[in-house]
């Protein structure tokens, strides 16, 4: 009885649209248990940013970090990759659009993680970490879309055989491949940007992966800077952070532009040690307001970073 009814339904459905996958109807309870079991928080290695994110990069969500050049976006990406692999969450896929991936910086982070290990153990740990970070260069949006489709197909057909699974996908920076194609009256570029967004969110949710993307800044009204990629991109990431230079030569600021969970402007204070000197405030679009918190850090690391090209 059920079969004939279903056949009848499918035949009514088929002329208009072909459903290419099962769309599950989940109740709130099932959603909640899936989130609690599968969607964990991945550490970025920078406790201040983890605090702002509510625990870290969340699997199943797309996090965006925007900021002007040399504000530390690539450092956040490299630090996240190192810490995630070091704590055995899984593998990391690093899509590099501007040749900013630096194995030297990864080894600096590993040194800071395990300062007291003897040299051989440090070497082995560095080897293990490096072998779990896959770095791939993409230089245009077509290659990016291709690669993301390929990643999705591979993930669908791979069975976990006891080895590590992909858990973090970093695209540094997604704006440098999207920005050249958008703008103007033609809607093709916007369509490709929207497709990248849908693909990233689908990969993140279906396969329990945290996606971290970076974005640069462009000039906005009244001479202020605003994140690139326009109004349509704002609807794509779950969480958006803004990094910017402070007035001092050692200071940077991190502000939250959008968050799914921490909607109020109250942030918990943490006495935290961080590799950089950062202070936090909560942003309302482009003007900085709210509570500020100074955190002391290691200025040597920041000076080293400042000499890297970003």
């Amino acid at each position, binding site marked *: 009885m059920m079969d004939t009814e279903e056949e009848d339904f499918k035949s009514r459905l088929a002329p208009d649209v072909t459903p290419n996958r099962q*769309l599950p109807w*989940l109740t709130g309870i099932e959603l909640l248990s899936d989130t609690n079991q599968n969607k964990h928080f991945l550490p970025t290695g920078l406790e201040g940013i983890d605090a702002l994110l509510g625990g870290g990069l969340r699997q199943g969500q797309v996090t965006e970090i925007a900021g002007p050049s040399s504000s530390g976006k690539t450092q956040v990406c490299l630090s996240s990759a190192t810490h995630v692999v070091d704590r055995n969450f899984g593998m990391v896929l690093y899509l590099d659009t501007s040749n900013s991936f630096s194995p030297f910086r990864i080894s600096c982070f590993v040194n800071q993680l395990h300062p007291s290990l003897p040299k051989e153990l440090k070497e082995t740990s560095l080897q293990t970490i490096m072998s779990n970070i896959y770095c791939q260069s993409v230089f245009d949006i077509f290659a990016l879309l291709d690669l993301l489709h390929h990643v999705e197909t591979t993930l669908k057909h791979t069975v976990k055989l006891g080895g590590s699974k992909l858990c973090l996908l970093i695209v540094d920076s997604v704006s440098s491949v999207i920005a050249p194609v958008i703008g103007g009256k033609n809607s093709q570029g916007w369509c490709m940007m929207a497709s990248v967004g849908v693909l990233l969110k689908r990969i993140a949710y279906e396969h329990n992966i945290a996606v971290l993307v970076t974005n640069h800044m462009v000039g906005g009204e009244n001479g202020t800077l605003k994140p690139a990629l326009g109004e349509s991109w704002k*609807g794509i990431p*779950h969480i958006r952070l803004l990094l910017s230079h402070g007035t001092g030569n050692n200071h940077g600021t991190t502000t939250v532009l959008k968050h799914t969970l921490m909607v109020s402007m109250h942030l918990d204070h943490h006495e935290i040690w961080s590799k950089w000197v950062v202070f936090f405030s909560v942003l309302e679009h482009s003007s900085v*307001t709210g509570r500020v918190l100074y955190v002391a850090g290691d200025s040597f690391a920041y000076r080293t970073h400042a000499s890297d090209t970003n």
Partner: protein
Amino acid sequence: MGEAKPENWIRCDETGKEMLSRVLSGRPFIIPAPPLHRLALRLRNVVEISGPSNSAKSQVLVQAVVHFILPKEWAGIQFGGMESKVVFFDLDCRFDVLRLSQILTHRISETCGSIGQIAFDELFHDCMSRFLYVRCYSSSDFLSSLKELSYQIQRKDETIGTGLRLLLIDSVGSFHWIDRSNQLRGLCKGKNISPQSLQEAIVHELHELLLLQPLLVLATKASLFRTETPNEYQSTGDRNLLFREYMPAVWQSFVTHRIQLHPSDELLSDGSEPIRSYTSDWLQPSVSIKDRFIVRDDGIFLT
């Protein structure tokens, strides 16, 4: 000919009072949570909540969900909820179930005071199982989910079909660029489906659904295109609130109510912390009072 007396034609079928009581019992008024509280909505209304990014539209939806899934009364405690099922179509794929559970937990704790953990869990479980969720990654996914929903309602399926009162769509404009580009490229799969007809099919499906089962539809729409305003509209208080409409005409005529949300420049102080506030403005039907609200951990509150 003899039976059809002329007086029969002008004899009334029911009095106005009878009609009013029939209509009100079939489609009762709903006063939803703020900021939608200004107008008494009824089932079969379609409300479009528009606003730029970061204007708390999805929070308004979550607030409405909590209002609908709470029971009217439970173990002697009045909750004032609608005790009905809710289906959420997530086209934006950005729904966070932890936020829903956070607001629900706060509401239950506030109303109940201290109840035992088991009772709390049972109530929480009851409420969360009235919430149904579907993710759609394209317009055709959305269309097939709508068809499946109407099929389940016709079958009076216990899990999905019965007791449904609220339908939420997060971001009707999510696939705007993809659909528009497909339309221009003339892409179609199988038979001739242009995305224009895809939008029409979606609205048609929603319309059929509303006829099958009286529902309240809340849909958010991201305002993507800001229009240029002439100088007389720019004052110190209001910002430019005019946005260009990009949804097709068939959707625009389907919508019965419109409200626009906007993040405000001013910051209100709540205790020691400054909090961002939002303004809401009913566009259709036009109400002259603008509400201001804030979003806290436990929901949306008017100020």
